[in-house]
């Protein structure tokens, strides 16, 4: 049974014979939609994006049309900036990499269209420095685009000017947070800003209105211009439109990146049909559906999800883990989130204590340190979990972990607090007995056979 992908954004990724130069891109219709969009005009493009119900693909799933509508180019007197967030750092996520390395012009075209639609004259592409070839590829592609008249002054004789510059990050996950990114781009420590008052739409880059969009989101803009917002909205499900790039890693036979219409595939179908099931003959134990910040789901879980039935009434439906649709609303209803699309699969050989300790180490390392709960609390979580993993857990540790996590989430400057707290809350909540067992068995016996996942 083939679950064939719907390759829209990934159309050319790994396509035989496809190369990333502009000639190849144009041979496949590249930059025709830019010309179309220039003729449509900015407001028309914004209208199509609104109609498409496109939701941000960076992790938050915020409607792009709404985000853009916060800025009215006709009323704003300050310059408007657009930043492409190519700082892909959410553990489990590797979709933007494919676009940057293999089809950069799609991103550039989508970005130019988005800039044009919002009256942007100067834009930046913030790319993580660990994409050591990626930034060079993008600079080359930008050069090609400029040479072909798609960037720079008077693009395609439309009178529209736009400069895009590549800006390399330097290894901080918090630069993926839009205001942290803006601070980093301004040349400072990547401390996210307090909102209010520093909403990017009002006080963003250089205190001017700014739009920050993910790579995949910007690519989708091109496709929306091509097929129109209504047609785009027909892909997927209402309020969860278009396609999603899904990245599957961990204990599956065929990890990798795939593209499906929103909600067209369930978690079970993704794992078992598309990715070949759990490897080494093992069974599923846990899965994180949307990057490490998303709450973990346990094999065998059954969710009560409110849905509209055929008569339009809201009813409670019982949904098994495997039948969860991979879209924003379904995953949110299950108490997790679609996030960045990074699906991390863990089989029944995996020690949940070790997995959580590993995730906590990541967040402790990446905390920017600006606000009290995250700075002190997230490292505390890591220290407790490492201690438990080392066989020195105490009976009150699970309760303590929950308390600490509960006092971080919702109390911080940015969503990093939630991102660090949710894994702790969910792993503890869903695998409580495993933590208790580990603590009870302290000492040498507590160290399992698996290689430690913590450092």
């Amino acid at each position, binding site marked *: 049974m083939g679950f064939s992908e719907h390759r829209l954004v990934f159309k050319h990724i790994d396509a035989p014979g496809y190369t990333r130069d502009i000639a190849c891109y144009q041979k496949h219709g590249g930059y025709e939609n830019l010309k179309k969009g220039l003729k449509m005009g900015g407001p028309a493009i914004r209208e199509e994006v609104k109609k498409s119900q496109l939701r941000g693909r960076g992790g938050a799933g915020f409607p792009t049309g709404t985000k853009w509508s916060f800025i009215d180019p006709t009323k704003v007197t300050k310059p408007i900036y657009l930043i492409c967030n190519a700082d892909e750092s959410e553990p*489990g996520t590797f979709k933007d990499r494919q676009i940057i390395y293999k089809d950069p012009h799609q991103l550039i075209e989508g970005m130019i269209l988005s800039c044009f639609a919002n009256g942007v004259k100067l834009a930046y592409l913030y790319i993580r*420095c*660990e994409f050591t070839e990626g930034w060079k590829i993008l600079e080359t592609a930008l050069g090609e685009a400029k040479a072909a008249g798609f960037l720079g002054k008077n693009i395609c004789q439309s009178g529209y000017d736009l400069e895009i510059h590549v800006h390399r990050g330097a290894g901080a*996950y918090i630069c993926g947070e839009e205001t942290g990114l803006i601070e980093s781009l*301004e040349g400072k420590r990547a401390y996210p800003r307090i909102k209010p008052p520093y909403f990017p739409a009002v006080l963003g880059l250089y205190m001017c209105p700014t739009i920050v969009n993910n790579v995949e989101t910007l690519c989708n803009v091109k496709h929306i211009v091509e097929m129109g917002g209504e047609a785009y909205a027909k892909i997927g499900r209402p309020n969860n439109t278009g396609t999603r790039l899904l990245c*599957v890693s961990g*204990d599956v036979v065929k990890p990798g990146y795939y593209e499906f219409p929103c909600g067209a595939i369930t978690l079970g179908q993704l794992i078992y049909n598309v990715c070949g099931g759990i490897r080494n003959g093992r069974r599923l134990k846990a899965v994180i559906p949307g990057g490490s910040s998303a709450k973990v789901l346990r094999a065998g879980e059954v969710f009560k999800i409110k849905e509209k039935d055929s008569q339009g009434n809201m009813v409670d439906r019982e949904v098994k883990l495997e039948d969860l649709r991979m879209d924003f609303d379904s995953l949110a209803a299950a108490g997790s989130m679609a996030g960045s699309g990074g699906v991390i699969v863990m089989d029944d050989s995996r020690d949940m204590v070790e997995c959580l300790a590993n995730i906590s180490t*990541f967040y402790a390392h990446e905390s920017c340190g600006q606000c009290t709960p995250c700075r002190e609390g997230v490292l505390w979580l890591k220290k407790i979990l490492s201690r438990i993993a080392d066989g020195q857990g105490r009976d009150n540790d699970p309760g303590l972990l929950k308390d600490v996590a509960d006092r971080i989430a919702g109390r911080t400057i940015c969503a990093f607090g939630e991102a660090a707290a949710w894994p702790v809350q969910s792993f503890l909540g869903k695998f409580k007995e495993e933590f208790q067992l580990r603590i009870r068995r302290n000492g040498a016996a507590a160290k399992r056979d698996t*290689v430690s996942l913590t450092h």
Partner: protein
Amino acid sequence: MSVPLQAGMESGVKPEVGEVTPAMEAKADDLISRYPVSKRSAVLPLLHLWQETFGYIGPRGVEWIAKKLTLQEIQVLELVTFYPWFRQKPYGKFHFRVCRTLPCALGGAGKTFATLQKLMNLKSDGHEGAMVSEDGRFSLEYSECLASCGTAPVILRNDEFHQAVDEKRATELVAGCK
């Protein structure tokens, strides 16, 4: 673990050797020109430029960049120590970064790291940052998620990205360091 007398600089590091060439100045000026609104935005690009030229960012780098962008040295030092890509002392000719975040850990990153460490004959001194071999040939450190979880475990050898680096592949990659 010893605590430094004052935070911010690695102790005992020699200043960078070499001169800033006209070509480097020109490159720096070009980078600065990409940020017409604020010169300060060029600090990260200049830090990359300096590190790629001199191998690390010592006091000379901090002061040169501060001067070029009309900043205080502390405003540059703040960034060198905030962003893990930047280092304040020379690393090995071949610098290995092994991703340790969950998918790569599940894929055996720990074994990869242990193999590399053994092959390079490195010992941890308890400090953050990379382990550097005595002869300056190799250095090794952990990295966080490198965004290629499907081909775990992944590493960076200098600027080269390598996927599915199990113990066998790790051995090959070390052997290939000429």
